[in-house]
């Protein structure tokens, strides 16, 4: 291979990885404000016109008796009540870092509350949300309806000076909305779960605005958002000399170092660095933006850190683990595992859902769970806990595709050690069961124990990787021959567009419906079509 050829491969290697492209969105004007975050900064949004709704309005920690409303803007109080035309209760805002917030308490369970911001004009927009049902109860519509977004943050991703994935996250959102209207009877969402990498590429406050708040605006003021930390939430990593790739005029003056988003290996959120010139003064934007229950505020055992947490919503227990930071340090990882065991031991609800960013099983482009240490650690350290303590479903992102496992137990090694005969639930034909139609997954196995889990990788809510075969010696920015062929994942009909043997290269998101007796998970594409689903039937003693 010639040197020129090698250079091209290496450059294309880097170029083709769309997930990283935003490292070239380097230093737009907003980064000049790094040391002093302002209130209404947005790459793409404009000051709202018409009805006075604050910028960045979103809900946090909606429980059966309380809710947090957060926003940025001039408004200093929230008016609320249970009737749209009678917002008679009022609460003044507190300032928390660079957001305002109110905590509404003494709310009634499973009740629709309306709220607005009076006093700034004659017209007013009224928003609403439902409080959670009481612990263990179902929402009044009989179903906990949950939307999951993995790696959706591509709206702020740039390549060659252009937004490289403009509109894709919106397409996925519209696909969900179409599905929800056509096939789910427009059921209101109860929860929005983020699987990490929801603001490319460095996870700055401004990227959160452009990739999240400006896109899901009309959803997040009516449903609580629950995130997990991805690698793109954690700033930049090692520096590279640009002049090695492209001889720019500036290179005559010496090396030009740039820092890539998404490759930080730090376990400390305070080391968050958005540009490569040292830790940012205000720490990790993710932790500044979200108000997460580190003290068991909504059920779940207190974790003592917002990096991982748990909460209850009606009949569902949800755990968000930190595969990006805590997972990198053995003491922190051990503490997270011990906490998880305590938390799951205390959980007695119908269903348990776990989310974290790095998938324990994946053969995604650029992300191979046999090779990446974060993924290996999550599989070896945590998968046994999930199976021993009754976790039903696990969702991750990171790989920009969709993969969904069989109903498994006991596979904690590399992919070539997977034995479907002993580690997957088999159907009457002796094949791994799909969890569909006549072979739904029973929560309890033949011995009466709940010990199997379905693992889903759903990282295509902002883009989907495409087939691009690797050249000799190339491992990144291309697809290896075993792309989307992890044997722990269910098989697909490869004849269909975007379908691979064990996964889908299709943009989309996941919807979970958790009723009293059934939990169904569906993968919905950008057109609103369902490409996969499985159902677990709840077991009782």
């Amino acid at each position, binding site marked *: 291979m010639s040197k020129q050829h090698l250079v091209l491969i290496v450059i294309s290697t880097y170029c083709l*990885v769309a997930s990283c492209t935003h490292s070239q969105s380097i230093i737009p004007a907003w980064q000049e404000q*790094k040391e002093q975050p302002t209130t209404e900064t947005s790459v793409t949004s404009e000051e709202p016109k018409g009805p006075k709704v604050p910028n960045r309005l979103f809900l946090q920690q909606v429980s059966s008796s309380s809710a947090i409303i957060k926003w940025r803007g001039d408004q200093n109080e929230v008016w609320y009540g249970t009737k749209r035309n009678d917002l008679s209760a009022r609460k003044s805002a507190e300032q928390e870092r660079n957001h305002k917030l109110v905590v509404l308490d003494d709310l009634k369970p499973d009740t629709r509350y309306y709220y607005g911001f009076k006093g700034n004009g004659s017209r007013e927009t009224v928003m609403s949300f439902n409080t959670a049902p009481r612990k263990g109860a179902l929402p009044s519509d009989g179903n906990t309806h949950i939307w999951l977004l993995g790696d959706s943050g591509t709206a702020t991703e740039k390549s060659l000076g252009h937004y490289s994935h403009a509109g894709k996250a919106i397409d996925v959102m519209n696909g969900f909305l179409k599905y929800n209207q056509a096939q789910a009877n427009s059921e209101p969402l109860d929860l929005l779960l983020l699987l990490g990498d929801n603001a490319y590429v460095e996870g700055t406050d401004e990227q959160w605005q452009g990739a999240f708040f400006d896109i899901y605006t009309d959803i997040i003021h009516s449903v609580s958002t629950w995130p997990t930390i991805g690698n793109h939430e954690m700033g930049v990593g090692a520096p590279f000399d640009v002049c090695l790739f492209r001889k720019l005029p500036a290179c005559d003056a010496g090396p030009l170092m740039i820092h890539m988003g998404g490759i930080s290996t730090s376990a400390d959120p305070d080391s968050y660095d958005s540009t490569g010139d040292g830790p940012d003064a205000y720490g990790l934007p993710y932790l500044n933006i979200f108000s997460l229950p580190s003290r068991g505020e909504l059920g779940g055992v207190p974790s003592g850190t917002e990096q991982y947490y748990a909460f209850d919503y009606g009949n569902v227990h949800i755990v968000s683990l930190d595969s990006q930071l805590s997972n990198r340090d053995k003491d922190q990882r051990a503490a997270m595992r011990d906490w998880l065991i305590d938390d799951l031991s205390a959980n007695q609800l119908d269903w348990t859902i776990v989310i974290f960013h790095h998938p324990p099983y994946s053969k995604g482009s650029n992300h191979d769970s046999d090779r990446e240490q974060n993924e290996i650690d999550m599989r070896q350290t945590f998968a046994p806990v999930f199976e021993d303590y009754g976790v039903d479903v696990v969702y991750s992102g*990171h790989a920009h595709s969709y993969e969904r496992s069989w109903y498994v137990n006991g596979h904690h090694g590399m992919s070539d050690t997977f034995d479907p005969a002993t580690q997957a639930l088999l159907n009457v034909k002796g094949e791994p069961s799909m969890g569909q139609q006549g072979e739904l997954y029973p929560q309890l196995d033949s011995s009466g124990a709940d010990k199997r889990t379905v693992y889903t990788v759903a990282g295509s809510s902002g883009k989907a990787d495409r087939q691009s075969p690797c050249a000799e010696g190339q*491992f990144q920015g291309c697809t290896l021959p075993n792309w989307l062929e992890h044997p722990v994942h269910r098989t697909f009909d490869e004849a269909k567009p975007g379908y691979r043997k064990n996964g889908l290269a299709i943009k989309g998101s996941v919807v979970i419906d958790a009723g009293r007796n059934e939990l169904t998970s569906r993968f919905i594409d950008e057109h609103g079509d369902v490409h996969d689903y499985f159902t677990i039937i709840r077991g009782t*003693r």
Partner: protein
Amino acid sequence: MRPILQIMLALISLYLPVLSAHQGDHSSIAELDALLAISPDAPSLLMTRGAAYTRTGQWDKAEQDIRRAKQIDTHINVEFALAQLYFHSGAFNNALLHINQYIEINPEYAPALLLKARSAHAAKQTKLALQSWNDYLTMEPLAHPGDYLAAAKLHALTGASGLKKALDLIDQGIENIGLTAQLQGYAMQLELDRNQPTRAYNRWRSLEHQLGTTPKYKITLAQLLILTNRAGEARLMLEDARAQLLQLRKTPAREALDLKLLSIEKQLG
């Protein structure tokens, strides 16, 4: 950031091909090898490959790259990278040497203080490790529960007075980050280690509102009741746990609890 650098980087954003953000260490090393074959004297690439070698346990190669980067550009601060390398390779005293040099220049960088604490800890320089943990936890009162536990466990290894200091540190952690089962559960064990079963019982009871409805909590409480000579209450607690285990969905963990419960009952007679 300096304006000139911002302008340069903005220019780069228009020209530069895209760089990968998602690299497994092994594959990134393969790519860096290719780049370094073309530009063998690029310090940034050497530093990056050195870090990747460190993460993959290729210590000699990591050191070679980092030191060569320093030779080429003497202005590069390689001390933190070397400290990480030596820490991960088990050369803890060397790690300390380099992290101290780094901290001299960057005394407020918490991750460096943390690495110093861990290096001293691993080097069995207990006094220095305890001081370093203290420095770190003072700078970062909202530290990760795992950091409080690591520091407390080191205190606990230093004898009876160390147990007390470990407990004080755990209490400090609880004050800073809130009552958690991780911290209080460890404190409960420490109380038992210093033969204070009543204190252990009280600490465990403080978790009742967090864990109190679970068989696991009740079985541990029964064990503590036995240690505080309250066998009757322990029996009732075990009966309660058994009844609950019969009601709850069976999991491998609950099956293990069942066995534990049986064993304690046998012990009670």
